[in-house]
């Protein structure tokens, strides 16, 4: 019986048992076919053909309305001329990378101007095949554009505004929305605060009509998820131009004074959609409380530091293309272009009706770096997506929060749900 060489010390421990094993193995080898490990089947050859699918070209138009707005407070938040457009450009680049393998190309035109110029331009471009229109325009302008293109083969994607009314009582059948609504944003933040057991909010509301709508969304969210608005204050102080050499001396006096004598609260919810005063609140309140809403802890569709779900590569591609960080409107525009690209690659066509119907169907989904598939709500064309809850620098959480349940999709715990919708155009 030949054994492989074994050190003497080891050999002493190995008794006759080992020898018996060897003998047994040997005996088996003689009496039965060798009991080898189960063999793998041998590989069948794979034929290598050369085929090319039919070529497809999809045209997209980006319209951006010139609006004059007060500038946000922080230098970090100043608008870029290509906000939104850059996200759509990345979407086009991603679609073209995919398109290379399917013989599909994607092209984008960009128009900037006032709404009448945009409508005129869009009508012309539509005639030459720009059927998909990404719109960064005010709510009224969005409705004007939608009505001007009614009955034409055009699908508009709203990336510019969070207005609930254009998805509800004023919804239009030819508009889908990739920007989250005010109610979605408020619900995402509210869920986190309720999960955190910080249910007592002090609401500070800015003077603009948008701030009133956003405050309504927070009031609704508080009621929906069981938080309490212990007090509301209207912020009417004119803080002046965002930039002056100096200014903090007065703000340091004004904000604590404004916050004096408030009812006991867990957080201060500052409602300031254009971000012209909210950032004055952190660290300046009368009692030490965290800030949420439009400064401090915010809910948003995208964050430039998000790295979950392959987000790093997405952020890197954006930075390489544009030289800057990605903002929520860039993300919203990217989702719109990717939705169009996804529909074209699945359906292998540029036929407008096929693509539009597919994007509206329950079978449609587009992966958008949110960990789960996103798609569009059937009752008003709003993108169904998780939202990020974050500080200015880092992700804190992702809503919907655990424990908030829904009969169909937990994503529908964010924003106005099907039974509440006032949108009629989608059901006609």
């Amino acid at each position, binding site marked *: 019986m030949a054994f492989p060489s074994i050190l003497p010390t080891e050999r002493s421990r190995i008794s006759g*048992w*080992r020898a*018996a*094993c060897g003998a*047994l*193995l040997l005996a*088996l080898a003689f*009496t*039965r076919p060798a009991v080898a*490990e*189960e*063999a*793998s*089947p*041998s*590989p*069948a*050859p*794979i*034929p*290598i*053909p*050369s*085929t090319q699918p039919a070529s497809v070209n999809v045209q997209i138009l980006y319209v951006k309305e010139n609006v004059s707005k007060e500038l946000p407070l922080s230098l970090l938040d100043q608008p870029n001329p290509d906000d939104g457009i850059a996200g759509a450009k990345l979407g086009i680049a*991603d679609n073209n*990378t*995919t398109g*290379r*393998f*399917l013989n599909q190309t994607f092209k984008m035109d960009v128009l900037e101007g006032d709404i009448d110029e945009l409508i005129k331009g869009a009508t012309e471009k539509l005639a030459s095949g720009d059927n998909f229109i990404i719109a960064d325009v005010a709510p009224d302008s969005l409705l004007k554009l939608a009505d001007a293109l009614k009955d034409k083969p055009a699908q508009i994607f709203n990336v510019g505004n969070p207005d609930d009314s254009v998805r509800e009582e004023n919804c239009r059948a030819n508009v889908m929305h990739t920007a989250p609504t005010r109610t979605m944003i408020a619900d995402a933040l509210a869920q986190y605060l309720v999960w955190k057991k910080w249910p007592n909010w002090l609401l500070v509301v800015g003077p603009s009509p948008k701030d009133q709508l956003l405050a309504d969304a927070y009031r609704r969210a508080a009621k929906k998820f069981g938080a309490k608005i212990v007090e509301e204050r209207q912020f009417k102080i004119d803080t002046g131009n965002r930039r002056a050499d100096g200014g903090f001396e007065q703000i340091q006096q004004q904000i604590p004074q404004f916050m004096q004598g408030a009812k006991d609260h867990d957080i201060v919810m500052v409602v300031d959609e254009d971000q012209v005063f909210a950032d004055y609140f952190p660290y300046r309140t009368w009692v030490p409380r965290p800030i949420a809403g439009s400064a401090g802890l915010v809910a948003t569709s995208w964050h430039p530091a998000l790295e979950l779900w*392959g987000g*790093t*590569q*997405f952020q*890197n*591609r954006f930075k390489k293309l544009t030289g800057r960080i990605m903002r929520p409107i860039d993300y919203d525009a990217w989702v719109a272009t*990717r939705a169009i690209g*996804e529909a074209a*690659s*699945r359906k292998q066509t540029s036929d407008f009706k096929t693509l539009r119907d597919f994007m509206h169907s329950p079978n449609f*989904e*587009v*992966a958008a770096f949110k*960990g*789960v*598939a996103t798609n569009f709500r059937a009752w008003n064309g709003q993108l169904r997506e998780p939202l990020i809850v974050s500080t200015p620098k880092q992700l804190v959480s992702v809503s919907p929060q655990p424990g908030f349940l829904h009969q169909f*999709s*937990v994503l529908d715990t964010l924003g106005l749900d099907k039974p509440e919708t006032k949108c009629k155009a989608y059901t006609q």
Partner: protein
Amino acid sequence: MPRISQAWSAVAAVLLASCYATSANAYTAYVTNEKDNSLSVIDTDKLEVIKTVKIGQRPRGIVMSKDGKWIIVCTSDDNDVKVYDAKTLEFVKTLPSGPDPELLTLHPDGKRLYIANEDDNLVTVVDIETSKVLTEIPVGVEPEGMGMSPDGKVLVNTSETTNMAHFIDTQNHKTFDNVLVDSRPRVAMFNSAQTQLWVSSEVGGTVAVINPADRKIITKINFEIPGVEKEAIQPVGIRITKDDKIAFVALGPANRVAVVDTSTFKVLKYILVGQRVWQMYFTPDGKLLFTTNGASNDVSVIDVASQKAIKSIKVGRYPWGVVVSPN
């Protein structure tokens, strides 16, 4: 005579089993810990961690050289691939790769290493002996899964945002077909007979089984687990037994591994493992399957024959990839 033969087999089986038990074949499993920049080394006989070593930044995909001498790791945040001695765990050399390498696969020739570069829409081909880049193959957005056909003639790469399985001829390194699958394809795996290619779609929640001969989808497998929300079912890792009969599919945050019959495509069972299970690897004898559970910082050991999780082994933070030594 047949009765005697059966009895003899039974006795022999028992005796053989005890022989194996006393002189068990211990392999070594290597686990990359993404958040710890470390490698956990597991003795597959004792089923415990015998060593933990620091390696490059953000280690993810891991393979072994054909001779079992080297372990080859994608150190994503270093933007390169590092080679370590499998026995001593000493650093051997760095291999060039494009930026942010994530997953890799070795050609059966033992020389050509195919690396998916998530950031650059490329698959980089490197000769592991000369450390030279042989070529770069353009693929879709965010290449990830890398499935090598057992005969080495075809490489399949999946691209996460393009949602395709790209079929690449390994002779001329050109793509010759592209198959659309559901959202965010993560892993591609051939069976031994090359009659099936399995592709997992993480966000789509499905596994597509493709016929490599005509690149048509044979079937799409769906998973349903009572009490687990649909969104949490995110298939990633796939391993198919050597005899091609059973496939194991890791379902991410569903914390389960699905056991699938490869002829009926029916899910036979869901095995509960650790949290966010992604990658898996068999021991060479096919008896055990190791799974990396990112969110619970452990590795589950599945007994393949009984299809049960028999142990969980604590490793570093966010275990990502796993490979088992061939000897």
